[in-house]
């Protein structure tokens, strides 16, 4: 854990830049940033804020809005320290330019967590995962926006800007700085002198932002902590918000694409005639591993593509199946040649000498992202200049990648950010759709919008990997866990996904890698999705083996984790854990610490006449250290849980003959309104280092639901999704908590 003060000084020493959060960049870059954001009638005070002569405050946000509210929470943090009048605050997304790279903030963040997150893996130029190379990122992912840019950048920028305004007013009025009050975008002095921020902005710009400025005390906050209305919502209810797929340009063509259905396959040949004979078709574009049809509208391109019969060289994966993948995982774990992730004590010895050993094997399938907006990208290559339009979690990474694909310098690429119809990891480093759009644009005159059909989106994704875990643990006579051995396949990140916060004296986690050839990509909460299920289901099995209540059993093992214990106790209280639920229902509990936020969850389920689990209610006790916007944070926890619940109940991508079986929503079902549980969220603002919002809610839900199913049916389901099992409730009511 790095303290704020150390971070500021550390940043200065390492980067040689200005000392406040936003200024963890070289001096040269600051000037470039000023040039980019400077506009007629306004004075750029620093890289992240602009105060207009009309007294408006424009906050430049380097992150992409995916519905997580970042375009509002960032300005809230800045405006708080600036003492701005919120009604005058506007938001502008930073251009994809090096001046707005937030990699230095990421680096600072990583210094605390010692890992490089997955959302940057696969981004061009950064594949080697060297920390030094991360300066060039402009990332949105890993629940990092508030944690990095907000805490380190926005707050500092707001405070520094206020300091400069006060400095300018003091000089203009000939009074001490300490006598000037900055409030509601106004500067006042007891003598009666006053000025708006806008009036003082030009003078303030003459002062260099200070090395260190005091920040407000939390008790004085008037904006942060309030359920502030989001900037992006009005455009999303009247249809005016423009997503990538909504880009419309003069002379634009539409392309629909089909890649080799077998992963790694190549295009052998295709007879273009059937497509070219169809109305509106302009061109058939052949790529090494895909074919696309370009037409005057999306539907004609789609119909013409369906008329083609491309021949594929299916390559090495043509015989890969779900069964062969799981057999490989089983074999890898059996072989025992595993990499040790972490170990404490001596787990092998402790297991050997134990009287009572519990074992279980768990399986989870592949998962697709299925963002509501299918992946797409619009590209226009003309005279050595490339323009791209679309939603990207890392605009700079996308720009670099597009330049590479087009074979032109990065400075010849202009990226136009659009709204994003869901990201969940899909629009981060896995930029195949961008590559394809640029490759097609090279062969097309004028702008071309390349759209994946839903079928293409689902079968050409980068998937949450299928995984298998074998868990072993020992219990003593008092029901204490004396050994915990967690073995599994496929490790990505974050590192804490493998950790337990329980006080197990002897524990280890070991894994096997590369057990399948299916493309991997980060999927909301990344490894927490499967590890949360493995760890917290097994913990429940141990409670049952020890004859203990699952809540009390967990609590008894949280002796060294007071924040986790507090969250667990709060959720138990919220859910009325000690009082049985109504007839035919039962509750399950789970807790995870994901992306710096602790989430303790209880789920209440019943079993329907169809033998399927129905989740009625979820309670979450959440400790993110601090909450910037409780409304958006609550929505993120609820939405995160729905995303995880869809995976828990229905989510399964299966592989047959090297290709994905599921094509569209009817065979990759989603939680809809009728299946969505009521979900009560409460926060504990412990003051600990600020945690993420977007992903933590997803982490514990599958285990909480599975543990409730066990409590109700006495059937332990060790393979997701739960819909594959047919259930019968055995517990009417009463002691239904496991």
């Amino acid at each position, binding site marked *: 854990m790095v303290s704020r003060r150390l971070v500021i000084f550390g940043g200065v020493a390492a980067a040689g830049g200005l000392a406040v959060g936003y200024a963890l960049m070289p001096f040269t870059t600051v000037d470039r940033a000023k040039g980019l954001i400077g506009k007629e009638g306004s004075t750029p005070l620093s890289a992240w804020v602009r105060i207009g002569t009309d007294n408006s405050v424009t906050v430049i946000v380097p992150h992409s809005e*995916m*519905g*997580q*509210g970042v375009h509002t929470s960032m300005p809230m943090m800045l405006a708080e320290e600036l003492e701005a009048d919120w009604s005058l605050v506007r938001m502008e997304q930073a251009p994809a330019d090096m001046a707005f790279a937030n990699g230095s903030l990421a680096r600072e963040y990583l210094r605390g967590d010692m890992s490089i997150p997955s959302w940057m893996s696969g981004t061009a130029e950064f594949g080697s995962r060297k920390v030094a190379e991360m300066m060039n990122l402009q990332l949105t992912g890993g629940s990092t926006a508030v944690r990095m840019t907000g805490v380190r950048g926005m707050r500092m920028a707001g405070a520094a800007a206020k300091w400069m305004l006060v400095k300018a007013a003091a000089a203009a009025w000939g009074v001490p700085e300490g006598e000037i009050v900055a409030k509601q975008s106004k500067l006042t002095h007891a003598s009666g002198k006053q000025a708006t921020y806008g009036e003082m902005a030009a003078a303030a710009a003459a002062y260099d932002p200070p090395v260190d400025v005091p920040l407000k005390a939390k008790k004085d906050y008037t904006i942060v902590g309030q*359920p502030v*209305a*989001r900037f*992006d*919502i*009005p455009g*999303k*209810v*009247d*249809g*005016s918000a*423009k*997503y990538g*797929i*909504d880009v*419309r340009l003069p002379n634009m063509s*539409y392309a629909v694409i089909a890649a080799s259905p077998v992963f790694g396959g190549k295009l052998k040949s295709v007879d273009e005639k059937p497509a070219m004979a169809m*109305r509106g078709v302009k061109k058939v574009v052949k790529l090494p591993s895909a074919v696309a049809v370009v037409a005057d*509208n*999306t*539907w004609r391109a*789609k119909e013409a593509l369906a008329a083609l019969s491309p021949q594929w060289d299916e390559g090495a994966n043509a015989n890969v199946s779900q069964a062969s993948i799981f057999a490989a995982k089983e074999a890898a774990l059996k072989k025992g040649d595993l990499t040790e992730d972490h170990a404490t004590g001596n787990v092998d010895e402790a297991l050997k000498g134990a009287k009572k050993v519990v074992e279980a094997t768990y399986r989870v399938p592949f998962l697709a992202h*299925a*963002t*509501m*907006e*299918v992946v797409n990208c619009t590209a226009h290559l003309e005279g050595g200049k490339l323009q791209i339009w679309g939603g990207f979690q890392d605009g700079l990474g996308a720009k670099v990648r597009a330049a590479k694909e087009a074979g032109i310098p990065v400075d010849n690429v202009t990226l136009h950010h659009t*709204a*994003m*119809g*869901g*990201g*969940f990891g899909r629009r981060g480093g896995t930029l195949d759709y961008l590559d394809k759009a640029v490759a097609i644009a090279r062969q097309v005159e004028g702008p071309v919008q390349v*759209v994946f*059909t*839903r079928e293409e989106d689902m079968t050409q994704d980068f998937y949450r990997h299928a995984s298998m875990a074998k868990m072993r643990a020992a219990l003593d006579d008092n029901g204490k866990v004396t050994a915990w051995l967690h073995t599994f396949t496929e490790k990505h990140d974050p590192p804490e996904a493998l950790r337990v916060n329980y006080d197990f004296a002897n524990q280890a986690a070991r894994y096997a890698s590369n057990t399948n050839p299916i493309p991997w990509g980060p999927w909301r909460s990344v490894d927490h999705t499967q590890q949360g299920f493995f760890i917290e289901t097994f913990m429940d099995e141990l409670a049952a083996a020890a004859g203990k209540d699952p809540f009390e059993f967990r609590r008894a093992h949280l002796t060294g984790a007071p924040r986790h214990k507090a969250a667990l106790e709060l959720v138990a209280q919220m859910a009325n854990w000690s009082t049985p639920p109504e007839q035919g229902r039962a509750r399950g509990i789970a807790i995870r610490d994901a992306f710096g936020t602790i989430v303790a969850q209880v789920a209440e389920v019943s079993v329907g006449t169809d033998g399927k689990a129905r989740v009625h209610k979820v309670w979450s006790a959440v400790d993110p250290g601090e909450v910037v916007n409780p409304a*958006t944070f609550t*929505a*993120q926890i*609820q*939405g*995160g*849980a*729905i*995303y995880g619940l869809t995976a828990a109940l229905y989510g399964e991508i299966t592989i047959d003959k090297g290709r994905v079986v599921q094509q*569209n*929503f*009817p065979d990759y079902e*989603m*939680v*809809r*309104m*009728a299946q*969505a549980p*009521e*979900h009560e969220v409460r926060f504990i603002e412990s003051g600990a280092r600020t945690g993420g919002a977007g992903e933590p809610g997803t982490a514990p839900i599958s285990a909480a639901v599975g543990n409730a199913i066990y409590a109700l049916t006495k059937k332990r389901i060790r393979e997701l999704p739960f819909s594959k099992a047919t259930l019968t409730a055995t517990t009417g009511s009463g002691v239904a908590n496991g």
Partner: protein
Amino acid sequence: MITINVNGTPQQVEAEEGMPLLWVIRDVLNMTGTKYGCGVGSCGACTVLIDGAATRSCSFPVGLAANKNITTIEGLKTGDNLHKVQQAWIEAQAPQCGFCQTGQIMTAVALLNEKPQPTDADIDAAMTNICRCGAYTQIRAAIHAAAKV
């Protein structure tokens, strides 16, 4: 040429009879508030009103829409005033990524026209649109709030 009536304006469109209404709206008329989500009538992102009934335009041939009144999200406002459902959506801060929300709103408008005071069960039955962000709690709250206006 097919003539369709969109948001009160007759429009002549050059399209095959079998072309789904969705693509006519989006790619021919360039009204992009109506979204493509699945193309098979499963997700509801493309919902429009046809003679007042919530209809999944991705699976509705434009030929069948001739001489019918089509309302898209762009036609929901009266002048500059948002429809009460849109207003309730803002107050509930319902959208997250927002991509499905125009379809959700159109479905909710049709529901409230038919059942001005819907129960939770009515909402469950009518609101089958997918929201991948999982904003269902806020959507339900917005529908109940709009029903009170």
